[in-house]
């Protein structure tokens, strides 16, 4: 009997070690430890042994069973690990294949720029308001101190709808609308689409976007204008930006300047600015001796054109998807 058990253990150990898959091991387990397995059969034969031998062989068989089970479990763990590794190897993909595309929405580069401009000016305390694109001649020109039929309008050729209505040529047209309703102090900004009746080329368009900001308070000076423009330009273009003024003429400001920023090695003209003309303040019942204010404006397109070195203004309204996918976000 002992001899038989020893032979059985040797055979079983050999079978466990040579099982090369979990399925084979399963068969080995069944062969020895299953319901009709050889170890089970011997256990079942215990009652046929002489009573004095039963305890010893019973114990021996149970130990054998436990021993074999342990060997099988160890082997199974080993085989499972190996089989998983093989499966993972087989599941390998060519990671250099292109991705499965997702549909990704994008905001237009002008919208992104407008959002940045808004954030910068809101941070400087400006309240954004809305103003119509189809505006009154009065707000677009007359309230801004343009004399009738003045050559200053040559740069503002307009699309007229009627004798009194036109498409605004500048977002500055919001000034009169605000001043006739509000009392200073205020800081107002507006952003939106403007139109000028001019020939389209790489740097001119009949449709473009502007932001205008103005404030009226006590003792507002050209230094406040310069400081505000510098703070704005630094948020838009980076901390090392410098601001430069040069005299220019706009009927609604006096003094009037053109401002430029020093950026990446050169001066870039951004827009017009100045102190709000006392005629405008007075026309709206604001005493220029008590209050003064500044105004500045700039073209929205100019900002991404500078940032990305885009050389053709027309691209923004052409909406070529290849352009939008490159500069949208």
């Amino acid at each position, binding site marked *: 009997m002992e001899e038989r058990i020893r032979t059985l253990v040797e055979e079983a150990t050999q079978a466990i070690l040579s099982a090369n898959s979990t399925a084979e091991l399963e068969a080995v387990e069944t062969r020895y430890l299953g319901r009709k397995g050889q170890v089970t059969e011997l256990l079942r034969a215990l009652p046929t042994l002489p009573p004095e031998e039963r305890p010893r062989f019973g114990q021996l068989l149970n130990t054998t069973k436990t021993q074999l089970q342990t060997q099988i479990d160890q082997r199974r763990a080993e085989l499972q690990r190996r089989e998983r590794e093989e499966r993972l190897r087989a599941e390998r993909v060519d990671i250099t294949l292109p991705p499965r595309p997702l549909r990704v929405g994008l905001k237009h580069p002008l919208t992104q720029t407008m959002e940045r401009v808004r954030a910068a000016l809101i941070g400087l305390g400006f309240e954004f308001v809305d103003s119509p694109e189809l505006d009154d001649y009065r707000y677009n020109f007359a309230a801004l101190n343009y004399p009738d039929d003045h050559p200053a309008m040559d740069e503002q050729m307009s699309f007229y709808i009627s004798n009194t209505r036109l498409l605004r040529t500048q977002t500055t047209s919001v000034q009169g609308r605000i001043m006739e309703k509000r009392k200073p102090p205020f800081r107002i900004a507006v952003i939106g689409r403007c139109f000028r009746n001019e020939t389209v080329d790489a740097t001119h368009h009949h449709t473009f976007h502007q932001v205008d900001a103005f404030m009226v308070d006590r003792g507002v000076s050209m230094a406040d204008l310069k400081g505000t423009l510098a703070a704005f330009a630094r948020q838009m273009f980076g901390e090392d930006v410098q601001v430069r003024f040069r005299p220019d003429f706009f009927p609604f400001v006096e003094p009037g300047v053109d401002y430029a920023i020093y950026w990446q090695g050169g001066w870039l003209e951004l827009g017009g600015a100045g102190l709000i003309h006392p005629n405008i303040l007075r026309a709206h019942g604001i005493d220029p001796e008590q209050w003064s204010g500044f105004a500045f404006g700039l073209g929205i397109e100019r900002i991404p054109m500078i940032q990305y070195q885009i050389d053709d203004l027309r691209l923004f*309204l052409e*909406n070529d*998807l290849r352009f939008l996918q490159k500069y949208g976000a």
Partner: protein
Amino acid sequence: MRVPIEWLKEYVDITVSPEELAHRLTMAGLEVEAIEHDEGEAVLNVKVTPNRGDCLSMVGVAREVAAIYHQPLRHPMPAARTGEPGEAAQVAKVEILDEDLCPRYAARVVRNIRIAPSPDWMQRRLLAAGMRPINNVVDVTNYVMLEMGQPLHAFDLDLLPNGHIVVRRAKPGERIVTLDGVERDLQPDMLMICDTTHPVAIAGVMGGSETEVTPNTRNVLLESAHFNPTSIRRTSQRLQLSTEASYRFERVVDPGGVVAALDRACDLLAQVGAGEPLSGVVDVYPHPVSERTVTLRPERCNLLLGLNLDAQTMVDCLRRLQLVAELRDGVVHVTVPTFRPDLNIEEDLAEEVGRVYGYENIPERLPFGHTHRGSDSPNTRLVRPLQEAFVRAGLVEVHTHTLRAPGPLDDPNRTPVRVRNAASEELSTLRNSLIPSLMDVVVHNLARRQTEIFLFEVGAVFAQLPDGEYEERLKAGFAITGSAFPPGWDARYPAADFFTAKGVVQVLLETVGVAEAEYAPLADPRFHPGRSARVLAGGREVGIFGELHPDVLEQLDITRRAVLAGEFDVETLWSLATRRVRYVPLPRYPAVLRDLAVLASEGVPYQTIEQTVKGAGGALLESVRLFDVYRGERIPEGTRSLALSLTFRSPERTLTDEEVDEVVAHIVRALEEIGARLRA
């Protein structure tokens, strides 16, 4: 304006390079747009702002240069020499009938004219300044205009009966042939230089060919005048005739320099041997412009500029500009010469001080005093969430044209607003819908072989209202064509269709918080009649969307692909938002799921079935989800089977099967009432 530096040097010393000069002039307000080189001579291309007509001359620019570099100015004729009528009055007579348009008209006479080419030096300067030499008389008038800014005109005196000039408005029906050979119809508000019977020149714009100086001319009458700038501008615009003269008159010519320019011209004519000037000037100037005095308070000047200058520095800056400035009782008194009509108020003087002192010296300071809360505009608060909703739905934002030609995709229910002075049909109306311009973009990109085109725009559209007023409204629109999901290398999807568009609409509605939207058939010639919808919320239409009509697509040369488009009214959308964000605990009790296959006639809309199920399901029915639509074998023709997954749940307890069975039975009875039944 072209300014040859060689010419400029006649009036002011210049020792710096053209580049340095150009930079300083630009920084002082006379923008030099380019430096050109003409036969080795540097020529500045100066852009003069419309308020500085005085700088449209060599002397004017020299005056700025003198101020910048602290140099004296050598004026060729600082004041008129001739004051008396003299001999000129015996052969010429000037009568101004419309003083409002012509405050001053002066004439001198030159005898024994010998027409010949002008001397080389004069021709070279004219050419460098961009004018073509003609003959000695015309060249001298042009030379003086370029030099001093005063346009002059030479008439053949012998062709003016009695040398009599009448300045008056045109009479109805009058015409004139101008120097360029064009016959022009005159309007009664145009100012004319006439003889005793008819116009011989359009005042300030162009002379007439009848009295033109020719090789036969023996005597000339030289005109130097001051005209109303607005009148000249209107005439020039009406006739579409802009000349060197009209350009200057529009920008205000110095009324005080009228006779000095005549004297200068006569001197030059004599000098080049073109003729012999008669003594005297006929100068009609009924109301001479007097020099104004404008005051500047130093503290006000410093407040505006943000500087801290002493009063004497201000006086020095102003004097450098050839202004007479004096400090009296702590206030700067400035006598403004007639060549600077742009200086009228204290702020104008502050600007002059600032630009001579140098704007680069103004410090940077952030405003102090009242603090303000910056904020977005009300419209931005409506627009931005919609832009972000479209982006989440995978659409790319575009900004399209407001101005466009009318077309078949315009909104048929909104009268378009027309542009009165459009240069072309392409710019003739304001869009009344976003769909046409979105489709322009679709067409543009299809032509560039883009196949996945998913676009949106939020922007203003316009309409003319029945009362004649104009309406400007914000719309949110989209246009999509391509695959329902982006095609890759291992998968293909069906084409985007009505339900793809409806998915976009749903994201939009959920973003705004429009809870219960209904979809009703749309009758709009732009859309496929069976694949388009009106979207209603609270009984109001918030927008429309659907597949575009194949006829419309054919007109755009789009074939073999469906294009979906939609447009929503931004304000109406937000006005119907009902969503309130509040906390609802996650469910604590398990749900019971039941699937129903509902067989109904094709004529019964899904919306009716869903509403019926929800109505009958009551509070315990948490949600209804459609997961299949089946037509075909094993069900009668003209019907479809809708597979619904129903979720039942109570917030208070675990539901029993019996309870749910009861509700389902109730639902089935309700479905039977609308002609639907469970599929066996």
